[in-house]
């Protein structure tokens, strides 16, 4: 996420078009209907408590609709959509907290391979990613998850092969991936490798996560030997990694907007129905004004995420260096505030395990910290602005 783009003066970016095409609207309603049917609260809870936070049947259904390969180029069996389409799916997934490997495989892994892999490598990996048969996860951090430290896995050349050693923390969906994209420290830089998740010398251990709907793993490589063809060989690996992480930053913001929107709607519905002192609690200004503030914040959060998705879609990387961290910092702030306020509006019931409020509250906090907290993201905005 270091700013490889030139510092941008505070110049107004070319305006994006926020409105959706007919097809995009159809995409939204298709995904929403699917998730309404298949990712209700009961199912999400079953998956998070009994299936380690990955809903394989739902993943298959998303794959059948082609959604797992939205960002995979058409020549490798994907849809070849822009990020605007992906942002629509992400928002809907975030609205339901649907426990599927979308962020990890369809965004992080896919972008890394598309940007870093040779044609051969892409042709080998991406068709299965598009069909959902393969699921990618990115292992690029050290065990402490530090953003400014080298990867926790090291790669050493040994003849024609590479030997991987070390430990990567906080690998999103790590234990449910079929393949790992490993960013490894070679001592002189970073290389990206694609390896089978069940390969010898590789172990995965689930992390005890705050947000059970988003599993993570610690990945350990111990003397793992792989051929050089596993190394993504086209393009600059740091640039590919940066592109994947930037796309994920925007993706998280889009997902957050879905969660924020749900939070606003659910809390508003409750405030309309719940009666205390002979009146709906939403008639009290204490509650009404809190929801009005949440509405204001929701609309602005949506603007930042949709803007970033469109900037990414059109490949305006100078503006993206501002828009991506801006969206994630702002949406994270709004989500954590809204999810906390919602619990307050629900009162006691919102503090129970059986109510869904805590699932959103935990997702909000967890995504706030994922790939850099708002303060970190704001610093990136400042760097890009030259402030």
């Amino acid at each position, binding site marked *: 996420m270091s700013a490889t783009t030139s510092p941008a003066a*505070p*110049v*107004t*970016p070319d*305006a994006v*078009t*926020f*409105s959706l095409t007919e097809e995009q609207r159809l995409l939204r309603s298709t995904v929403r209907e699917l998730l309404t049917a298949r990712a209700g609260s009961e199912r999400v809870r079953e998956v998070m408590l009994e299936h380690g936070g990955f809903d394989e049947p739902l993943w298959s259904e998303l794959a059948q609709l082609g959604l797992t390969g939205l960002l995979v180029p058409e020549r490798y069996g994907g849809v070849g959509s822009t990020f605007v389409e992906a942002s629509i799916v992400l928002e809907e997934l975030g609205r339901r907290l649907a426990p599927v490997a979308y962020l990890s495989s369809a965004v992080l892994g896919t972008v890394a391979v598309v940007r870093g892999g040779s044609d051969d490598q892409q042709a080998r990996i991406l068709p299965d990613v598009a069909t959902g048969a393969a699921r990618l996860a990115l292992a690029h951090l050290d065990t402490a998850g530090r953003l400014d430290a080298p990867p926790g896995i090291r790669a050493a050349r040994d003849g024609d092969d590479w030997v991987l050693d070390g430990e990567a923390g906080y690998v999103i969906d790590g234990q449910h991936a079929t393949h790992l994209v490993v960013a490894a420290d070679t001592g002189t830089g970073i290389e990206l490798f694609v390896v089978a998740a069940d390969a010898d010398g590789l172990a995965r251990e689930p992390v005890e996560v705050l947000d059970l709907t988003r599993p993570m793993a610690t990945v350990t490589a111990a003397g793992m030997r792989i051929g050089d063809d596993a190394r993504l060989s086209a393009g600059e690996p740091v640039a590919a990694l940066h592109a994947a992480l930037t796309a994920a930053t925007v993706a998280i913001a889009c997902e957050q907007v879905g969660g924020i929107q749900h939070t606003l709607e659910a809390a*508003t519905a409750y*405030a*309309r129905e719940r009666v205390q002192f002979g*009146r*709906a609690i*939403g*008639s*009290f*200004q204490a*509650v*009404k*004004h809190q*929801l*009005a*503030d949440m*509405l*204001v914040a929701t*609309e*602005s*959060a*949506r*603007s*930042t995420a*949709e*803007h970033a998705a469109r900037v990414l879609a059109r490949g305006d990387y100078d503006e993206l260096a501002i828009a991506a961290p*801006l969206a994630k*910092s*702002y949406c994270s702030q709004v989500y954590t505030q809204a999810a906390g306020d919602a619990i307050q509006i629900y009162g006691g019931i919102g503090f129970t395990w059986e109510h869904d409020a805590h699932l959103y509250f935990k997702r909000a906090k967890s995504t706030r910290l994922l790939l850099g907290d*708002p*303060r970190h993201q*704001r*610093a990136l*905005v*400042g760097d890009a*602005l030259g*402030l």
Partner: protein
Amino acid sequence: MASDTASTTDERTMIEERVEALLASHPPATTPEHEFWGAQFDHGLAWVQHPEGYGGCGVSPRWQAEVDRRIEQAGGSTRNRYINVLGIGMGAGTIMEHGTEDQQRRWLRPMFACEEIWCQMFSEPGAGSDLAALATSAKRDGDHWIVNGQKVWTTLAHLATWGLLVARTDPDVPKHAGLTYFVVDMDSDGVDVRPLHQITGEAEFNEVYLTDVRIPDEHRVGDVGQGWKVAMTTLMNERVAIGGGVQPRGEGAIRQAVEVWQTHHGADGDPAQRDELLRLWVEAEALRLTSTRAKEAATHGTPGPEGSTAKLHWADLNKAITSFTIDLLGPEGMTYPGGYRFTRPEETATRTTSPHKAFLRARANSIEGGTSEVMKNILGERVLGLPGEPRTDKNQPWREVPRS
């Protein structure tokens, strides 16, 4: 933007032809402003949505932005919309919707040409957020009305020829039902305009004392007792006028904050202050993007809640930014450069305002044009569908409702 349909293509052609005709017959470079605006009215380009003969040509109001853009490109001035904002922005729509034909013929053209300036007399000391509680009375006297009362926050009253007035004509019915809408000749006997000094010392606003002011019944707008409805038209036009523009990135209060950061701190600045600056910058940009989105939605005819949240968001943010800017100034923030002056502010104040004055002026943002509390009620009830509070004042005769 979606491509023009057949009928909008026709409208575009018609607009373009009219603008060309106007610019050809009244070249901005050589035509005095007032004359140009008069001609613009005559060409149906003042309020394009008005019918022919009333300053318009009967097309969708969204063409107005295009007309203004072209006039400005050709060096023409559109600052009449600013100089006479209460007339052109709010009064005109009201008169078109509720006025008689005589009134429309009499008032619209001189208004647009800025030959006559307008002001608005709604708020009173006892009726701020609760506008419908206003106490200024109008009593019938033959074919005239006799008005007594006090209005506040009347921008431009000291320059105005005409004033939009809401007064109580029946105190014995519930408060919304007893109001009537008038246009007052500001030169009438009994109209006393006094400057109202604000916390900057300047007098941007006025108080207007009305003592036995006589208004001919032909200057009544709408029926007797319909004043609330007519006033709502004025206020709706106000909101449209406010929500119109989208500033470029980094403009407004945040520009000043960034400038102070760069001149007073820069690379060696305190990281805690830099983070706060960036937090505000991010929020300002989020708001700007929301305004852009709202504007786009409005032109596509499907406005969402993003439109109604901007004023509320802006008010809080502007207060926060201007206050933080003073903190960034450090000890210099304890000064008021130029000192307090008890005069009228200059017209183009927004561009040249010091951070200190901006800081003080911003306190009114969450009060003027609807307090933030009232805005939150509106958002909560009209956008989110939350129920209102129990009201005792809505159905009681005005005379019996407690007031302060």
